[in-house]
């Protein structure tokens, strides 16, 4: 039976694959990219774009989608929900739109939900981790995420804290839907890991100093801090920590990796921090060695001939976008349509896909629109070059990977 399905799929692919040669006149299929390309999480936006372009190049090389070339249309939302909503509306007017790839910011994605569902646009989340982005209450739900899910992120960060013997942690959260989403998850699961939350600090976007808050945190005497912020606020917090309490370990959600945290803070200060950061992918992790080698090679050819396994900034965005674009192209081919309901159904029925991050048994189902869970995440540390390498207890013993 399975064999039969595969044969049918293969024949469909072959038919369209053959058709593509003479059908180049047809208009290209569009994947929109709606992310911050210029403001606070530029590295994340750039990595998502690169991942998408790498996948698109591979797809076009083997004949495109529905026999038509695949193209990326980039819209910049600068982290501002109002711009994001406008971008979704603009992209929805594209006649050949297959799906929209989102960006780093949870508040933007949350604000876009009504527009996404009003216009029936398939929204692929390669980064923003807010639980409510996917658990959004819409039926049908057009949001699919191949990224961290905050609820799961909380477990991973708490588990990490627990493994390192921490009993109390202070939380530092940005004052947006993303911060609140994490507060809920961290509060929900902290007991499970025997951890007490000593104090919660809220951080505004573009806040100028964190000194008073770090003093308040310090007075509650936590073993470590868990931070859920983006890069600019991360830099501010890191500086305050170095000034007031340089030895406290920081367990960070991955928002830092979406912007220029390492480069702005500087290597010297970075090395003084005890900082671990949540990640889902590293070229060092050999879960899919063949795919990883192929993608790294393509990256070197296309973007940076000097790139190494840990030099690519915000590499998770690249990996997520790469797998998402492949999956959505596969779904469109299987649905033989660009219509959102048909593509969504096909996407929910893909099984056994060998991606860059892992081999997916079934990336999405009707009920489960998140492709990655706690088991797929790990903690990483910054190395001296400002790249991220997986954290092990060994790293700790040898001094935080310095």
């Amino acid at each position, binding site marked *: 039976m399975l064999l039969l399905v595969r044969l049918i799929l293969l024949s469909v692919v072959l038919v369209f694959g053959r058709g593509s040669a003479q059908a180049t006149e047809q208009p290209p299929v569009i994947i929109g990219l709606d992310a911050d390309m*210029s*403001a*606070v999480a530029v590295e994340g936006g750039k990595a998502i774009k690169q991942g998408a372009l790498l996948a698109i190049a591979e797809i076009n090389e083997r004949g495109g989608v529905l026999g038509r070339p695949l193209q990326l249309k980039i819209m910049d939302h*600068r*982290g*501002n*929900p*109002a*711009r994001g909503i*406008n971008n979704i509306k603009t992209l929805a007017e594209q006649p050949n739109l297959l799906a929209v790839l989102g960006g780093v*910011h949870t*508040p*933007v994605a*949350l*604000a876009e939900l009504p527009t996404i569902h009003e216009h029936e646009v398939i929204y692929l989340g390669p980064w923003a981790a807010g639980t409510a982005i996917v658990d959004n209450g819409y039926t049908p739900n057009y949001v699919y995420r191949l990224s961290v899910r905050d609820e799961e992120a909380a477990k991973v960060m708490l588990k990490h804290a627990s493994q390192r013997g921490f009993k109390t942690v202070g939380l530092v959260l940005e*004052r*947006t*839907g993303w911060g*609140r989403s994490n507060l*809920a998850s961290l509060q929900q699961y902290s007991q499970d890991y025997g951890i007490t939350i000593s104090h919660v600090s*809220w951080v*505004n*976007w*573009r*806040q*100028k100093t964190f*000194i*008073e808050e770090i003093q308040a945190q310090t007075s509650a005497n936590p073993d470590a801090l868990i931070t859920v912020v983006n890069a*600019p606020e991360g830099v501010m917090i890191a500086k305050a920590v170095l000034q007031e309490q340089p030895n406290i370990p920081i367990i960070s959600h991955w928002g830092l990796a979406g912007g220029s945290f390492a480069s702005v803070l500087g290597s010297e200060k970075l090395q003084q921090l005890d900082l671990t950061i949540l990640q889902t992918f590293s070229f060092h992790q050999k879960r899919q060695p063949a795919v990883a080698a192929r993608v790294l090679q393509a990256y070197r050819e296309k973007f940076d001939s000097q790139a190494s396994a840990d030099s690519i900034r915000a590499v998770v965005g690249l990996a997520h976008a790469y797998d998402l674009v492949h999956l959505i192209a596969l779904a469109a081919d299987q649905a033989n349509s660009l219509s959102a309901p048909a593509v969504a159904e096909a996407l929910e029925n893909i099984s056994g896909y060998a991606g860059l991050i892992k081999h997916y048994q079934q990336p999405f189902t009707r009920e489960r629109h998140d492709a990655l869970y706690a088991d797929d995440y790990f903690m990483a540390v910054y190395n001296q070059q400002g790249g991220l390498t997986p954290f092990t207890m060994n790293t700790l013993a040898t001094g935080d990977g310095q």
Partner: protein
Amino acid sequence: MIHLPSLRRKILQATLPQIALLSFLALLIIGSAIFIAARSHLSTLHENYADSVTVNLERNLDMTARQLHNIASNDLVINGLIDTQYRDYYLPLFIQSLQITQAPDVPLALFNYAGHPLLEKNWQVVPGEFDNVWQNDVLQELSLYTEISENGILIAAPIELAGAAEGALVMYLKSLEWLLNAPLNPATQLVVSEGGTILLSSRPALYPQGSYFDSTAQSGQFLYQKPWRDYQVISLEPITSAYSNVFWLIPVLIVSIALVLISALYSARLAANMSSASLRRLHRNLQQAARSSELPPRHPEKARELEQIHQAFTKLIQDVSLLSLSNNQFSDVIHSMQELLLVVDNDYQLLLTNQRGELFLQKYQLSPAQLFQSLVQDITESNAGYTAKYSRANEKVLHISWQLAPLQNKQGEFIGHVLVGEDITERLQLEYDIQVRNRAIEYASVGMTIVKTSSPSYPLEYVNQAFEQMTGYRKAELIGNNTYQMLCAQTTQQYADKILAKVLAGKKCEMTLQMRHKDGRLYYNRLSLTPLVDQDNVITHYLGIQQDVTAQHEAARHLEDARLRAEESTQLKSQFLASMSHEIRTPINGIYGMLEALKETRLNDKQARYVSLATESTSNLLHIINDILDFSKIEAGKLTIEQHDFNLAVMLRKIVAHYQVESRAKNVEIVLLEENCHQLVCGDPVRIRQIISNLLSNAVKFTEQGQITVSATLATTADGYQLSLAVSDTGIGIASHKLQSVFSMFSQADISTTRKFGGTGLGLSISQQLVELMGGTIGVESTPGEGSTFRVSITLHGPKNPQLPDTDSTTSLTLREDHLHSELKILLVEDNEINRIVATELLQGYDITIAEDGEQAISQLTHGQSRFDLILMDCHMPVMDGFEATRRIRAGQAGEDYQHIPIIAMTANAMSGDKEQCLEQGMSDYISKPFSTQEITDMMNKWQQKISSTTSI
């Protein structure tokens, strides 16, 4: 020769007309010079006035724009653009609380990146011409935008995030007047548009703003105007007042000229007389010498003088040659002097000067005589030097401090003056600069203090006026003292020592402290301490910059409160609202009924235990759902407080009667103390009943022995009534550290309480929110183990229909206590608590009194204060069953009034024949359990109609 006029006459003839002519010319020249000087002085004066207006306007405009820009850079505003979910909880509060200029109700609006308005404050008054003018500059170019037109001033600032505008903050001022402090000068300054409209006037009484000003029709006015932006700044003053300070010079001038003329005449005469006399004597001598053909004998006087002059001259030449060498050295010394040196004789002929002195005279074209005359009076009078100013076009004014000494010869005779001048221009400039800085510090809007650290007591060495205002203490009370104890109300010595140590280590400290004002109130001081070091890098003082941030602190606290409330409520909503709907209540009542029915069937012990557990759980569930429904309504803002007339005393008695049943079962008595409550008042009876019920049910729940007191006082106030209510119990009480949280959601004194006593913990929270919705207060005092007292204070209004009967409790019993439902008063006779709840739930809005068995029912009918219309009677009850009770009522044991009261049987035995038995026993109707809301409502409606038709007949 003999007929020639005398020398005297000749001199007088020759000099008189010239003196007259010269005097007249002098009069003319001086007169015109004064006029020209006065006019030029006036121009300069008015130019200064006009300049001060433009400088002030530009500076204030710039300050206002910068302030707006600072607010636009506030992280809360930026965060608000991103945090679309929750910004409504803090952004409006933030925007409403802003006060940018002194102008009241300044329109202010927040726009998003596309120029769409997000929040507005007073914006409707902004003229349409400003709608689309600023967007390009602010949103695209990221620059501050300022526009001044005849209709007002618009200032827009971008909200910047990483190099682009994500929004804009825009304010509008109706008039320039808020940007200019009234100028203090005798003239009038105006800002006038091209069309002649007055935009700003320093004397609005004379030149009202908005009126027309014609600069060509201002004869009789001294008028100065200069352009500013697209407008003209005009300074004007009536000519009579402008020149008033030179008019008085004219008579003085004329008198002086006349005096000069007279004295010139007199001098000419005297000179002529003297010269002619001496010439005549000389003439005589010469004639004499000529006649004697030899030199006339040397006149003794003259010869001696000549001799002396000769000798003196010879000696002088010798001295001069001797002194020549030292003279050169002397000359070097005086030329090297930094001071100006001028030595003159008594006729002000220059005897000696140095290079600087010479240069000075040349530069300012002064003769020594002029210089001395200008100085000598002041100097000799004051005897202590004199400072004079010298100016030339395009050069800085030179300030010279002069010292005068008499020049005396060896004999001590006064032979001239020595004048030494010191250039003190730079010193004055330095003194002025220091003065400016001192004034800036003294009048700064933030408090500034300087503390001396080299003294062990750390005394205050300086405070400015702002600090005096902030603390309420005068300088004299502060300076020289260590004011820490006096000012820092809430700071521990330990913390203060820590800060001091940090400052003494050379670190800058910033902190916010709570301090105490002289008048006793507490305020928050944002304090920045900066150590000051001397030349040797030793810390001698520290500078404190202090600002009263109480308002910000309060605002931040309110924001935080608002946010916490918002977040908590949202979590609750998402967790509960989805599953709790109004419809759930009805099926649960069904479950009750069915469980009850099941209980009546034959069950083994295990089954009976299971059913009992199920009923208990369902009871808890129903309670929870009711609370949550109310709570959701409050949180969603859907719950409104209604206003109806009702009788407070009647309500209180009913509630107490209701809970009395339950409390008596525990041997606890409820005592009702009411004062002045027999009033018809206007409020929300349903919600007030709910609050009191919540408090009373808690009191009953947590009190095992003793008594519960409900005291209510209704006081008359200016605009209605003040209800003060207290519910006191002798129950378990609440620990002091839990007192604050009893009104929080889902809070009981501790988790074990929930396990023991059940409930959602929402009751008090709901009560608090209801009280707050009514504008009242609720509070609690408690001693653990002794009991708790909850106090509620609510404002009620006078009745809408005061003509309705009130006060008398017996008549008021017939009044509708609340508006919701029928007037039907029902006695519910039911032994099973669950069934009572079911029936009460289904009959919500009806006035229900409960009896637990037939005996209680008859007692209620006989002794109760209520007059019942209908009885709902369970059939199977302990003590006295429904059938027996019905027989006795029909027999008149409950009084004649109730002999024919409708009695409706409720029975779980839904078997045929039951109905017949009920009717046989004298019951009026029959309803089988479990019943739905519809069934019971239909039944009630049916009987209500019957009752009212009977009454009307």
